[in-house]
């Protein structure tokens, strides 16, 4: 009897992805709910501005936190979309096209997000 989620794959990359979804899910639950509590309950959009972020990113702690959260959330979401493409796109051509677009767009967005977190420097704008 399988569980509530996707049946556990037998092995290979699919099993790795299945395990990753569950492990990253638990870590993300803690990180994202903390992120929401800090940004949307303790603070809010009225006080979040350039100086707020600059103060937050003055020390490496929140940069590291945000980078780990970005990678986990992004790969978790990317794999979710991959699973849905597998489920709903049955023609070979469309599947190839949609998966290729997903990975190309995914690479661009993840690279942009990482670049911003790692290189932000108030003294040196783009």
């Amino acid at each position, binding site marked *: 009897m399988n569980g509530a989620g996707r049946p556990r794959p037998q092995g290979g990359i699919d099993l790795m992805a299945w395990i990753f979804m569950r492990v990253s899910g638990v870590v993300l639950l803690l990180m994202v709910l903390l992120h929401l509590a800090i940004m949307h309950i303790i603070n809010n959009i009225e006080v979040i501005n350039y100086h707020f972020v600059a103060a937050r990113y003055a020390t490496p702690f929140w940069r590291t936190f945000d980078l780990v959260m970005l990678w986990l959330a992004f790969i978790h*979401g990317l794999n979710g979309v991959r699973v849905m493409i597998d489920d709903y796109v049955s023609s070979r051509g469309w599947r190839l096209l949609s998966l290729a677009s997903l990975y190309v767009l995914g690479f661009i967005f993840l690279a942009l997000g990482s670049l911003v977190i790692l290189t932000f420097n108030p003294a040196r704008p783009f």
Partner: protein
Amino acid sequence: MGKISKYFTYRGHEGQWSWLLHRITGIGVFLFLLAHIVDTAMIGWGPSVYNETMAIYRHPLFRVGEVILSGAVLYHALNGVRIIIIDFWPESTLAQKKLFYAVVVTFAVIFVPAAIYMMAWMVK
């Protein structure tokens, strides 16, 4: 072809609706993550560009969207825990409906006060 409901109904009941909601909230949160990467990237162009970008999120429509997004994240997180429990503890399959109602109740207990607090700006 036939009834439109056939496109939305697989087996019905709690098991299917929790699964469908998990997919919908997952897609929604992922799409917002893409937008969030772009809005955060604006910080590289300095205070005026970033502050103008943040001003968009102060629009009442986005502030309502913020609450809906938080609800989507919370549901996805709680239902994810339910999925993991059932995956790694097969006996709990028998209690899957109760687990779904536990997700609904936990969601309501956290979301209702948080949403009221987040919407307080409306009456200020």
